[in-house]
């Protein structure tokens, strides 16, 4: 890539120093503070850092960090890749990621859904990958219909090639103003936010006849206007991905669950847009075992705890799918800023799937979760701390599901497990 102007170089270097200091003083991954310092010194830094690279932006309500990691891992087959591996997904984090790998010809950035229009405008990214939209912490997040509307406006009239999950009606609507879209049938597990047509508000008819198989079950069309699911170019079919040439690829990921297979399908379609064939990309996707502590197993006093992150109702549904129904489970819920201060979303999660399992409840908002489980008729044990929950459990394997800051607290106890 071309040389940065002097001011941008200086800003970028100072940002890296701040990041190193932040890490050295144990305040965090350093990616946000570093980028903030850089942006303060040179507001146009992100634009300059993005110039002359082949850049993909990745956005969704869930799976952003994992999909970004999968894409970045695969692209390393082609050369050096700049990426925000720590999930710092706003412009400061992007600046930090790009200045940390100045000469990388490729970049893949996880982008917060709200910031996508701004980051797309600034970076002029050539590729944008969009997976899903569902209700999230609404005391800070935008309303999702409005969010999809903003994506439409941001993508209209730009040359970006969009890779989008056509099984999510709201994502389809958000992506469909783009000049070029590759549609991926990645499935949709959480459907409570897509019963109505984003175009006209009419009812969406979901599913199809069983004879149509899996493809039938993901089909959707508006009953009142012409908006309907586009024909996919890539299809996730159980354990396999079928590419646009009709070739079938067995995924064999180490990351568990259908949501990650869906993330991998998007990743394969995205790297294909970089010119990387699934034959070369797949072995690299299979090397990813955990992402920023997600899916990691940590040990304590004879117990093997697998850490699952779930930030919103769709995320909990995915975590339950991955969780082993034979194991005891610890649930930990906080309501700090990044979690959303409102715990209402607990009532959108169907906890009845936990019936019959030993359930341990902890976290700063454990009483909110306790009442929720009580109303669902799920027996549980309330624990004042994570340690108390672990100590109460028999030796052996245990699953842990926690929301954002609760997850980070647990991860910190294990030395920021990766």
């Amino acid at each position: 890539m071309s040389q940065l102007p002097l001011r941008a170089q200086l800003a970028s270097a100072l940002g890296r120093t701040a990041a190193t200091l932040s890490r050295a003083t144990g305040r965090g991954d350093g990616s946000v503070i570093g980028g903030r310092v850089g942006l303060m010194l040179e507001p146009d830094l992100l634009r300059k850092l993005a110039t002359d690279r082949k850049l993909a932006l990745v956005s969704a309500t869930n799976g952003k960090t994992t999909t970004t990691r999968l894409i970045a891992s695969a692209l390393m087959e082609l050369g050096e890749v700049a990426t925000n591996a720590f999930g710092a997904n706003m412009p400061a984090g992007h600046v930090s990621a790009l200045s940390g790998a100045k000469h990388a010809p490729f970049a893949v950035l996880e982008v917060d859904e709200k910031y996508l229009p701004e980051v797309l405008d600034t970076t002029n990214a050539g590729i944008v990958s969009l997976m899903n939209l569902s209700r999230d912490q609404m005391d800070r997040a935008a309303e999702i219909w409005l969010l999809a509307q903003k994506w439409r406006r941001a993508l209209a009239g730009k040359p970006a090639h969009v890779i989008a999950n056509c099984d999510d009606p709201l994502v389809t609507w958000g992506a469909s103003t783009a000049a070029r879209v590759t549609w991926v049938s990645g499935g949709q597990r959480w459907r409570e936010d897509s019963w109505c047509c984003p175009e006209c508000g009419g009812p969406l008819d979901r599913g199809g006849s069983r004879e149509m198989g899996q493809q039938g079950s993901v089909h959707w069309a508006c009953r009142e206007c012409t908006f309907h699911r586009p024909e996919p170019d890539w299809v996730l079919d159980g354990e396999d991905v079928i590419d646009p040439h009709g070739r079938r690829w067995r995924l064999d990921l180490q990351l568990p669950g259908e949501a990650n297979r869906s993330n991998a399908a998007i990743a394969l379609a995205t790297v294909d847009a970089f010119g990387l064939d699934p034959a070369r990309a797949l072995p690299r996707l299979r090397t990813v075992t955990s992402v920023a502590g997600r899916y990691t197993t940590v040990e304590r006093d004879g117990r093997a705890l697998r850490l699952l992150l779930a930030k919103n109702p769709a995320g909990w549904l995915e975590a339950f799918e991955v969780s082993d129904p034979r194991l005891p489970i610890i649930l930990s819920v906080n309501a700090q800023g990044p979690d959303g201060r409102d715990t209402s979303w607990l009532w959108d999660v169907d906890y009845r799937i936990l019936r019959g399992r030993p359930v341990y409840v902890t976290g700063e908002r454990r009483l909110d979760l306790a009442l929720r489980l009580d109303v669902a008729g799920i027996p549980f044990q309330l624990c004042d701390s994570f340690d108390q929950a672990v100590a109460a459990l028999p030796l052996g394997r245990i699953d842990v599901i926690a929301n954002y800051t609760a997850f980070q607290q647990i991860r910190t106890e294990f030395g920021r497990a990766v």
Partner: protein
Amino acid sequence: MQSELSIVWIYPDLLSTYGDQGNALVLEQRARARGVPTRIHHVRSSDPVPQQGDIYLIGGGEDRPQILGAERLRKDGGLQSAIARGAAMLAVCAGYQIMGSVFGGEEGQPVPGLELLDISSSRGERRAVGELAAEVDPALRLPTLTGFENHMGVTRLGPGVRPLSRTIVGTGNGDGTEGCVAGKIIGTYLHGPALARNPALADLLLSWAIGPLPPVNDEWYQRLRDERLSAVLGDQA
């Protein structure tokens, strides 16, 4: 009430932004705890609203779904008939505004409501987001209201309704009051599962539908209320 208590959840496909299902689940649990068979009916916006329900619930939503929901309910007429027949209702946030004569649309334009409550709403200057605590109208004999609000609405109460409560913390209607009550209808800005934090309000709705209720074990409800009220009110609690 006929053979079972019928709870009608209106338009979960449009107006169920955040945990609104909780109100239906809490009513169901507390009715069953009194030995009352209960059924929750989910009524999507493409379906007619049944007129024979006992308690109607309507929740929060984004601007566009709110306008769509109001249009469909006006055309459908089922809810209006049910209320005229004497059914009870809890209307939350966007659903609360829809029950008035008018509310503010996406661009602040006035959108006609159902006129089931003598209120009118418009868009305020800033979003009210956070915990809310309020003293309930003494005539209703309910403990302090607690919950979370997240809205931009300002609601003026007409002479046909009484304020549900006076705010201690939070914005509510915007004039120091929060929510309203008229006949067997309660409106509130406490979004999502307001009844989970206010089981006495749930019991009030149930008693309107099925008569006097014996007490039930409220342990988890009480512990959550105590924790939230002391977090929000501190020493005032």
